């Protein structure tokens, strides 16, 4: 008789998800699935709205990375009105994006991944969380809070609010940056860099002490995708899409607007989230990953000095070939965090950042537009089709978490097979499975967060009888 273990929803990720693990009579894992239950209705919801409303509407998809949706949407609108936005507007948008990356990456490492790394997979879940970190190391926790707040302050200074910004508009941005605000952000950058460097030391130390685990945990052979600069460097706001194979060989380098020529989407009946893949290799050979690990795998360099030094170390992990272990996402995320603060500093020191030349108008309406950006979790694509008045007739959004869908599902299965013993089930085993998902920091839904909505339940069910053999509820 096969048993079914369900983890629902996965803790310390955003959205609604379940993990189901099928266990046979010997307690061994047969197979495992990562399901996404939340139906995402924003594409349909958008139809009929004017294109220029989309940068305001789409950030509501997520309270965690609203800026990424805001900017991807604005870029799609730039394409619809056929606008080449002024350089100062590009700098300001990129600065806002760096704020988003800093707050998201910092929070993930220090508060979400950190508990597993600091306390260990098998630690009591009552302390293995952000509160545990606060109690164990309040100084580190305070730095994490300040880092996140620093990123959010960049966003707030530009947009007047920390979430759901109203800043980027088709053709540019709607507000200039004052000297006072620039200087206030600038004076904090060196301190923030030192905080992230502390995190990097912590991550490297953990990797060194847990080398065996890191080298066997969620190691997947996939392609990798991410934006790069014209010179092949790490790029988060603009650039071309680069796709490499599992050995690091170049597969494609293309304009984001051409994504439909290269990316297909596979559907499985057990998940609402689609599975993107590289069309020329087909499904499932064409699966690839996105996000921090993928971006560092596709990049040839990083254009800021401190991040470049760490990047060299990262590249040495697998002799210059792609780094495959899922746990390396945490290290890659911190390197990008460092890059984001360094890049923010560069942008703030650019005289054009204070320019009043921040928007253009064209009077043109093209039938469609695509915006591509590297959200903290990976490549984010907004594609709108509009009528002659500029109203949305169709929208297609491929979110970062979607690109990683296969990797999360396959990774869950691999980790479950390696660590889960159905006859001697422990919380630590299940935490390892959840930990695989947390490597990818998925953001799964536009979910509500109303009081009383979300229990955390782990069900162990007999698949042959449907009987619930065991159940664990986390409050």
């Amino acid at each position, binding site marked *: 008789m096969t048993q079914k273990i369900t983890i629902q*929803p996965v803790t310390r990720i955003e959205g609604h998800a379940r993990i189901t693990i099928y266990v046979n009579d010997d307690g061994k894992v047969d197979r495992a699935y990562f399901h996404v239950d939340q139906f995402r209705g924003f594409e349909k919801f958008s139809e009929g709205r004017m294109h220029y409303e989309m940068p305001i509407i789409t950030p509501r998809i997520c309270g965690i990375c609203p800026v990424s949706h805001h900017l991807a949407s604005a870029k799609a609108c730039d394409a619809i009105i056929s606008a080449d936005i002024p350089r100062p507007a590009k700098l300001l948008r990129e600065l806002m994006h760096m704020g988003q990356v800093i707050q998201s990456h910092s929070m993930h490492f220090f508060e979400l991944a950190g508990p597993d790394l600091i306390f260990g997979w098998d630690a009591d879940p009552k302390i293995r969380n952000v509160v545990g970190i606060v109690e164990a190391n309040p100084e580190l926790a305070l730095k994490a809070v300040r880092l996140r707040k620093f990123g959010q302050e960049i966003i707030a200074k530009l947009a007047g609010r920390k979430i759901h910004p109203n800043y980027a508009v088709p053709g540019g941005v709607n507000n200039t940056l004052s000297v006072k605000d620039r200087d206030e952000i600038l004076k904090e950058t060196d301190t923030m860099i030192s905080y992230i460097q502390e995190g990097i030391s912590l991550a490297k130390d953990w990797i060194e002490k847990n080398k065996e685990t890191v080298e066997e945990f969620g190691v997947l052979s996939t392609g990798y995708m991410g934006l790069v600069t014209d010179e092949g460097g790490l790029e988060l706001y603009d650039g071309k899409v680069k796709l490499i194979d599992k050995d690091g060989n170049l597969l494609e380098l293309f304009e984001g607007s051409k994504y439909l020529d290269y990316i297909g989407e596979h559907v499985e009946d057990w998940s609402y989230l689609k599975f993107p893949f590289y069309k020329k290799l087909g499904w499932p050979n064409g699966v690839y990953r996105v996000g921090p690990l993928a971006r560092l795998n596709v990049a040839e360099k990083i254009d800021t000095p401190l991040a470049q030094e760490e990047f060299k170390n990262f590249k040495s992990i697998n002799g210059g070939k792609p780094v495959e272990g899922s746990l390396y996402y945490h290290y890659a995320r911190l390197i990008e965090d460092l890059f984001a603060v360094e890049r923010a500093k560069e942008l703030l020191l650019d005289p054009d950042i204070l320019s009043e030349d921040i928007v253009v108008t064209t009077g043109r309406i093209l039938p469609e537009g695509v915006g591509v950006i590297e959200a903290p979790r990976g490549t984010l694509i907004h594609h709108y089709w509009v009528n002659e008045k500029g109203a949305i007739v169709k929208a297609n959004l491929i979110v970062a978490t979607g690109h990683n869908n296969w990797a999360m599902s396959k990774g869950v299965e691999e980790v479950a097979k390696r660590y889960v013993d159905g006859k001697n089930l422990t919380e630590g085993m299940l935490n390892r499975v959840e930990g695989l998902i947390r490597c990818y920091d998925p953001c799964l839904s536009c979910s509500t*967060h*109303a009081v009383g909505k979300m229990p955390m339940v782990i069900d162990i069910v007999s698949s042959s009888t449907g009987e619930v053999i065991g159940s664990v509820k986390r409050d």
Partner: protein
Amino acid sequence: MEASKGTSILVIGYGNPARSDDGLGEYVAQRLLSEDTSIDILILQELGPELCEDISGCELLFFVDASIDQEEPFIIREITPRYKTPIFSHHISPDMLLAITEELYNKRPKAYLVSIKGYNFDFGFEITEMAKQNSERAIEKIKEICMNWRLQKR
């Protein structure tokens, strides 16, 4: 949409305004600010740890959120710092936020969780009339608590 006047009363309204009645937190915070400009409000989709700094600067605090499963039109209950395992990564409960604030900043404002019954959580920016009525009743109670608190402070 945030105000930060550094005053003693902070109202944090949270939820997703694109999910109909889930926008009740924002609705209530805005309504309160429109009647009493001396308060601070924060409008958020969800609660994150960085709020500790804002919370550490206030003396009276209200968390306002929509509720799916309660019978009462609204419930206001005082909350105290409490550590627990977070259900979601990026979302922290109000009582845990108080606990982190106390630990990091040694500050413990008097705090209330205001949960207001909602009816429709589908996509949309409109709040249902019944939810608005529940909100108005909650607003009156919040105003009463604020008034009594100010009287006690004199």
